[in-house]
């Protein structure tokens, strides 16, 4: 029994934050469940020979849906150009990157979608018992209201850790039978640019940013409903602004030389690469190449040790969206995408 004496609860706490790293049986259970999810996905894998098309998904046993937009395979130049006066050192050197095809969620994951994952029994789990879905670990009950009054229906979900976003991807994969994960940093920038080599996906003129994005210049101090601005050339909304978006990668300096499907696998909890800028940022942070490192201060309001592995209560401008690669990966790869093993921190 976990005893409770000594816990003087302050402003922010979660029930049972959980201190332990995954035990061997837990890891074995997780691997087994990933295999079961993969079997489910392989019953209807995407047809590799077919041209990717946009489509809609309704989360089974709910009325909540989202759109998937195809992103063709291709090559692009990652990072900021010499002609970008607001570039930061971490956006260089520019380098060629090739990425395989995938679909990407047209808009940031909304509270409508994310709350199904956060709170059990809101998505028809009782009438449609599903052991595979139930075996995916889910967030602890949040103590405070997590939108902080900025809006729920149609608004982007915020303040989740990268671990929480990874687990959402696993949960959604189990629910839908389609493989989802966070985009790599390269995939994210490739999709954001949508073929553009300029600072922004619409060009270099930041005076037009208000047509495409919510940022500090027009947000009035809060996030906005997703997909209310003009999308980029590939039909993706709010890649720039509204909320920053998690990627899979550790935040690290770029190396010189071309890359194919790069993924900088994380070896420590911080920093991870976050992209796109937010309602809280000035225009230059919304540039396609701008990078933000995740930081322990994003959990500053959590007074307890261990800190919650699910919430960055102080990152009220942080969200995510998922990709669905055209090629279904192996079970081992799936396990790696959904389990960073770095969710616990001790500082």
């Amino acid at each position, binding site marked *: 029994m976990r005893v409770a004496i*000594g*816990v*003087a609860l302050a402003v922010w706490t979660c029930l049972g934050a959980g201190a332990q790293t995954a035990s061997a049986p837990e890891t074995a259970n997780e691997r087994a469940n990933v295999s079961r999810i993969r079997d489910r996905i392989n019953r209807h894998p995407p047809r590799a020979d077919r041209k990717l098309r946009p489509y809609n998904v309704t989360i089974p046993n709910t009325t909540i849906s989202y759109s998937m937009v195809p992103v063709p395979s291709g090559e692009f130049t990652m990072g900021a150009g010499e002609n970008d006066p607001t570039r930061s050192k971490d956006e260089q050197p520019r380098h060629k990157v090739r990425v395989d095809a995938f679909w990407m969620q047209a808009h940031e994951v909304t509270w409508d979608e994310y709350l199904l994952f956060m709170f059990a029994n809101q998505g028809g789990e009782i009438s449609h018992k599903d052991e595979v879905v139930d075996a995916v670990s889910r967030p602890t009950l949040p103590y405070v209201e997590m939108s902080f009054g900025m809006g729920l229906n149609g608004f982007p979900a915020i303040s989740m850790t990268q671990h929480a976003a990874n687990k959402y991807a696993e949960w959604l994969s189990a629910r839908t039978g389609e493989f989802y994960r966070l985009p790599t940093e390269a995939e994210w920038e490739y999709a954001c640019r949508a073929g553009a080599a300029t600072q922004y996906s619409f060009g270099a003129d930041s005076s037009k940013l208000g047509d495409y994005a919510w940022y500090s210049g027009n947000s009035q*101090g809060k996030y906005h409903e997703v997909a209310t601005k003009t999308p980029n050339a590939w039909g993706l909304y709010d890649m720039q602004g509204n909320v920053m978006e998690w990627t899979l990668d550790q935040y690290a300096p770029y190396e010189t030389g071309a890359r194919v499907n790069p993924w900088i696998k994380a070896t420590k909890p911080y920093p991870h690469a976050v992209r796109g800028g937010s309602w809280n940022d000035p225009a230059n942070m919304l540039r396609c190449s701008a990078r933000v490192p995740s930081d322990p201060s994003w959990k*500053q309001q959590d007074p307890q*040790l261990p800190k919650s592995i699910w919430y960055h209560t102080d990152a009220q401008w942080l969200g995510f969206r998922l990709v669905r690669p055209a090629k279904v990966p192996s079970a081992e790869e799936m396990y790696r995408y959904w389990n960073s093993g770095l969710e616990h921190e001790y500082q």
Partner: protein
Amino acid sequence: MNDFSRDSERRKFLKDAGALGAAIATGFPAIISAQTVTNAIKVGLVGCGGRGTGAASQALQADDYTELTAVADIDQSQVDQCLELLKRNPKIAARVKTEPTRQFLGLDAYQKLIESGIDVVLLATPPGFRPLHLAACVAANKHIFCEKPISTDAPGVRSVLETAGKAKTKNLSLVSGFCWRYSNMIQEAFQQVGDGAIGKLVAYYATYYTNPVKPMPPDSTRPAGMSDVEWQIRNWYNFVWLCGDSIVEQAIHSADKIAWAMHDQPPVSCVGVGGRVIPSEGGNIYDHFEINYIYPNGMRAFLANRQITGCYNETSDYMLGAEGTCTLGRGPVPRIEGKTNWNFTGQRYDMFQREHDVLFAAVRKNQPVNDGTRMATSTMLGIMGRMAAYTGQQITWEQALNSQEKLFPDNLDWGGKLEMRPRAQPGVTKFA
């Protein structure tokens, strides 16, 4: 604006301590000499739960020459987890010096810890114990970090006021865990309001609508032979004598901000409603309160809290002025709208770390800080509201502060019997 940077604070007092260090350091590499000089501050932690562990981590990061040399709790597994977590942080691991002989267990563990040759005590047990622990720390001339709230009843508050006075006389530092007072972001918002940004303050409305904290487990899970006292302490959040109820243990942060806005002057009186609508497995706390306070100049403060799953949740503060509103907790930064439009744009510092930076700098410089009176007043505000809700009566500040109702039992015995007071019933429960 003040510079709240941790590093600059640390540099400042290291400079102050530098003369001593340099004198002793002759001939030795600086870092070793610093470790071998006798000016390490020895810290003891009472209450090794999540908050206590967090506080110990912050204490060790506030000053490079602090050492955690003793811990106290009721449960060895809690001690073990606390120390394991602290040792996983490479910045502080080497300064966690708590041999098994310096790990104290039981209801008198705090006393053994105090007598173990430490300088600073971190108090992070359930709040019912606080008056007793504080008095013992000050009697033994210890500096203190004291988590909020500081009591669950009025006799306890009066005891803490007396203890705080003694601490002042003895030049001891006493820093309170009412953390928002140490947030530079919230400080700046209060500064704006104080400077007239919303005109004359008319009312303060605070919400603390959250999910439940630590629901009571069913009685069937109580191990055979476990005493009433142990069972209640292990489930402390559900018993008024230990936690003070949600308005005293949780929404007390909002009560503290109300007190801040009212310049820590007490209200005249309050009325309130409260009750429990979701059946619990035991314990005697409510799951909702709403309290209305009136102040000498006619200002009102409204404090509402609820801990029920599936309801509208909100934790915010609205300072309503004659010429504008200051809002805290809607979005990430404070906002003022009206006569002046303002929102916080600076860098925010970690308020929990700041509490310890201030405490240890004060100890190093021998310039005591004492939050004692203020933390007692803020806690009393919550207790007064609870009294109004429990009895259904209008309660004045004088009545509340002089209440003879002692919730914390005398001569607490770990294996002892303890009758639980029935849950209060407005109109039936009498003010005492």
